[in-house]
């Protein structure tokens, strides 16, 4: 089922959580709402679910206006950040809940419910834990139960609020691969909220980057990472170095003083050399080297006094044999230039 949010505005007292936001999600896609806390992403998700109602705007499912429908009527599967499992019910009862509360004429028989729940337990690989209570499960297991409970009612849309936020790094990685796999199997239109850009880029078909109640960019992970629409997007999707600069006849100049533009360079798009290469470069002194990890992180001080972060492949680092306090040349391989905006300054 496709989802459309049209001109949504939502205020909480003085705070504007969503400012005239419009978003279209085609049927069957897995979409990430990505942004820092307070960007309005969770509010948008809750409005789609019917747990929150917008001050202005409409929500449509498959073109039908459902703005006035309650959460109970919308048939969405919602997975909460802290799972919200019913703590006095077993895993089985939790998953069966959505089926058991149906009006009698739509309620499946006891046997049908049992079969269905067991199929879902198989799907989440927790068949032998049906009689456990939520407090007896690990975080990752609870998350999967919450997902099975949401899927049990055969929702038309699956909404997940920071689904992996409360888990440790390793479990998080496993679960997000599993979610991607699951989505490839059942093709349900899914929207998940996250503040982790890596998670959004890895799992989603499309990423919606949000900031301060507005949508900054909608695009494929490749689009938003490699062709950012704004300084905020570029800044939010990875580490960056910021320089003052200006653009003249297709050439970018980096300046020491404030200008109308800001030049953004990702650390891995900077190279280090002992000699100037004839192209663009600037001088710097190496301050700190951290060689642990796939990339060597070098911190340097540019000739005008600002810190610069550079990330080099291990082989490049070894062939250069850099030393602390050495004078080197830094060569930008690719830069992005955006006009100065308040948001960019704040995001820094």
């Amino acid at each position, binding site marked *: 089922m496709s989802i459309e949010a049209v001109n949504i505005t939502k205020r909480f007292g003085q705070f504007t959580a969503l400012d005239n936001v419009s978003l279209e999600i085609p049927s069957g896609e897995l979409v990430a709402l990505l942004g820092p806390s307070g960007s309005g992403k969770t509010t948008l998700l809750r409005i789609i*679910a*019917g*747990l929150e109602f917008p001050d202005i705007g409409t929500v449509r499912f498959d073109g039908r206006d459902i703005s006035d429908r*309650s*959460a*109970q009527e*919308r*048939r*969405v*599967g*919602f997975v*909460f*950040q*802290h*799972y*919200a*499992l*019913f*703590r*006095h019910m077993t895993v089985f009862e939790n998953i069966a*809940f*959505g089926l058991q*509360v*149906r009006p009698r004429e739509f309620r499946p028989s006891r046997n049908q419910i049992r079969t269905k729940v067991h199929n879902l337990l198989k799907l989440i690989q927790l068949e032998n834990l049906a009689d456990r209570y*939520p*407090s007896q499960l690990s*975080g990752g297991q609870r998350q999967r139960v919450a997902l099975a*409970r*949401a899927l*049990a*009612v055969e929702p038309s849309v699956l909404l997940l609020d920071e689904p992996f936020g*409360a888990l*440790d790094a390793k479990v998080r990685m496993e679960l997000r691969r599993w979610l991607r796999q699951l989505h490839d199997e059942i093709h349900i239109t899914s929207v998940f909220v996250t503040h982790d850009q890596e998670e959004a880029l890895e799992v989603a078909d499309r990423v919606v980057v949000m900031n301060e109640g507005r949508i900054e960019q909608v695009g494929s992970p490749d689009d938003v990472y490699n062709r950012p629409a704004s300084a905020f997007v570029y800044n939010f999707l990875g580490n960056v170095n910021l320089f003052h600069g200006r653009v003249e006849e297709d050439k970018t100049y980096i300046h020491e003083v404030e200008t109308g533009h800001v030049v953004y360079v990702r650390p891995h798009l900077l190279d280090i050399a002992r000699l100037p290469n004839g192209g663009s470069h600037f001088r710097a002194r190496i301050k700190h080297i951290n060689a642990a990890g796939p990339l060597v992180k070098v911190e340097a001080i540019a000739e005008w006094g600002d810190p610069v972060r550079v990330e080099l492949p291990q082989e490049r680092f070894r062939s250069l044999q850099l030393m602390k306090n050495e004078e080197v040349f830094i060569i930008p391989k690719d830069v992005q230039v955006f006009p100065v905006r308040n948001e960019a300054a704040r995001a820094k």
Partner: protein
Amino acid sequence: MASITLPNPGVLAASRAVQATTEQPWVRWSLIAIAVAFLGVFLFLPLAIVFSSALERGVSVYVGALREPDAMAAIKLTLIAAGISVPLNMIFGITAAWAIGKFDFLGKSLLITLIDLPFSVSPVVSGLIYVLIFGLQGLLGPWLAAHDLKIIFAVPGIVLATMFVTFPFVARELIPLVEAQGTEEEEAALTLGASGWQTFWRVTLPNVKWGLLYGVILCNARAMGEFGAVSVVSGHIRGRTNTMPLHIEILYNEYQFAPAFAVASLLALLALATLLAKTVVEWKARQQSTELQRMSGEAL
């Protein structure tokens, strides 16, 4: 995570703290002796006297005192008053806790203050309020008299006074519990298609059942034991408007010590049963709250 492999610093600190803050043996033992003596004189001795005085003149006098018509009427009236006020205050307590715990609205703290009012008002004043409203010289007195309705010096007045005095017990017990549990589970139930009623019966209520039971037990104990407010509105008509505490007072004032203590022993038994039930429920509720803490702790 690291604390699993390292020796737990909390435990070490605690055991050192016990050593650092402990006192000389003679100080410890004399403090314990004082506490035990205090408990003995003010709690166990009176309890023993109630039962020994009640049975002083034999079991037949004891049973006779309880089966005497006025005593039976007092017991019945006490059961009626508690039987009406406890369920009503339970419903009120649940709705108040639900409204206060799950929603934000203007005047919320005023409502909480109002709920606490019966705790801060003297029971005698609580009774007088009803006399001033429903009594013959009271606000509604003439109207009630004209319609031949009797509230003061009758059963309705006793029920009203009992309700007022026991008003905060259930609500006070539930409000913090409901607030701590938040609204996520209810939201989950709604998105799964449950109606408001289904959500309440299947999710909200089961989550607070031990707190609710605890509140009801306390509420019931107070409803049966209330003296002051009921005394003002009752009129002390033997066999008609006397509750157990009032009946005991009358017997005692008439120097009928054995029957007075016999009826008193029933109330004492109620207190003991309440204490036992309270302990069991507290233990269950604590289990539930550690579970709640563990779940939210891990979720963070």
